[in-house]
């Protein structure tokens, strides 16, 4: 019968039961949502740069809005809503384009669906600002599925290729009559790419060829790649995931889901760091020793 091994704190640190790990993540994320702490945040340089381009918009300026899928929307929702809010308040015009099917559902969850009278998050603001479909914004639909041909058409010969919105309604007589090439565009906002931006169609055919300012509301994994494109000047600014969105909410004075999530983000980050440190303490205190002893030949084997 072997000896019963006593409790070893280092072993416990190296092999924390997963159910406690997962329970703690629920506590760390749900706790601040239910009981907000109000942890302070500081607005970063990239968010200030992003906001500066939004702030320069004037009434009547035309902005391309590239949709976000649900996969990225949940991470960049705060920046998505805050950016649209700013565009509406500036009375800029929106051309909305998509590359995937659910991007329209995301957009309409924020801006509403005028056909079915389904309200969105910003419907009260739109009603207050008299911001209407076909007068102030038009959804062209999944036009980006056309790939390179689509980007070239949008950038160089809009009137020859785009005649209807996503429902087939003619766009004649709307603000799009004044849009011919990328030179007529004041700003492009990629509302939630799944990676970085800069090398995509709008980067090549709008930002690079015509110098149109290009902004991105990027998810975490896209931050470092997009930063490289900001250095080249092709991308002018970005919101760094949920934190960037929260900072933008703070800048525009409309706190929302982003700021509320910052408590969770802070605690979640610290929790993960703590797990890495505790795990490594357990590794050096017990696991490493156990692995070395396992490899060391015993006296019996040598006989």
């Amino acid at each position, binding site marked *: 019968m072997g000896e019963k091994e006593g409790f070893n704190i280092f072993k416990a640190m190296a*092999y924390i039961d997963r159910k406690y790990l997962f329970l703690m993540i629920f506590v760390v994320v749900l706790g601040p949502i239910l009981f907000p702490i109000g942890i302070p945040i500081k607005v970063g340089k990239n968010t200030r740069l992003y906001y500066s381009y939004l702030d320069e918009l004037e009434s009547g300026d035309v902005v391309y809005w590239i949709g976000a899928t649900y*996969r990225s929307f*949940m991470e960049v929702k705060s920046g998505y809503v805050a950016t649209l809010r700013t565009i509406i308040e500036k009375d800029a015009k929106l051309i909305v384009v998509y590359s995937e099917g659910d991007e329209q559902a995301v957009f309409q969850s924020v801006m509403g669906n005028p056909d079915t009278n389904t309200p969105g998050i910003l419907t009260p603001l739109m009603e207050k600002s008299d911001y209407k479909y076909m007068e102030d914004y038009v959804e062209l639909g999944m036009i980006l599925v056309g790939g390179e041909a689509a980007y070239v058409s949008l950038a160089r010969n809009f009137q020859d290729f785009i005649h209807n919105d996503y429902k087939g309604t003619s766009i004649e007589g709307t603000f799009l009559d004044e849009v011919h090439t990328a030179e007529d565009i004041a700003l492009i906002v990629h509302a939630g790419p799944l990676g970085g931006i800069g090398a995509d169609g709008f980067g090549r055919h709008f930002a690079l060829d015509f110098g149109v300012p290009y902004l991105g509301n990027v998810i975490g994994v896209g931050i470092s790649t997009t930063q490289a494109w900001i250095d080249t000047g092709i991308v002018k600014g970005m919101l760094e995931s949920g934190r960037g969105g929260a900072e933008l909410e703070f800048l525009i004075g409309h706190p929302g889901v982003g700021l509320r999530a910052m408590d969770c983000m*802070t605690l979640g980050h610290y929790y993960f*760091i703590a797990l890495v440190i505790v*795990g490594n303490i357990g590794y050096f205190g017990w696991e490493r020793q156990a692995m070395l002893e396992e490899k060391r030949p015993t006296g019996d084997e040598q006989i």
Partner: protein
Amino acid sequence: MSLLLKRKDVILTIVAFCFSLTVIPYFFDVPALETYANNLNKIVTVIITGAFTISLYAQTRRNVMMIKRRSSGWIYQVIQLLLVYVMISIGLFLGQTSIPYTWLIEAFVMPCSVVLYSIATFYMISAGARAFRARNFNSFLFLLAAVLVLFAQAPMTESLMPWPAVIREYLGSTFGKTVGRVFGLGLSISVIVLGVRTLLGKEPATLGIMEEGG
């Protein structure tokens, strides 16, 4: 005719022609060529979209086989097939802007997309506690950089102390950007090399050419 179209030289000629038709307008302003290039791009887009029907067929066949065999989790295949075909039917006959279609997006697609992304949290937490070990000096440096960047990334940190942001900025603007650029350059060069090899006929698999049949 079919034998002719299976010949490697014929396929390569078609590829070279389409390549030229698409690339030349980037460098020379030839309006007629640009029209043909745009039309070709549209044709390709439609074909690629049509290829989804093949994946639908393959997925349906796989699911039906699993259901017939009553394999483990077969009930989920039933639910999946049901949802896929209900959504396709509603989208085709009632339209993508119809209320039932929008409801399906908001009731199923949206929550599932969110969950798929969020579920990675548990893997990351488990990895942080169990897999991220400083087994040698290199991995120690990697962990140190990761911990410092994470610490600086937490919103509260920067409002309390400035130095983590400076370290994060340094790591991001030196190592991070360098690696990102190397990765981007490597990817771009590989794509160009693959394109050249395809045009030279050295990548038969890409063109669907069987080596024995030529």
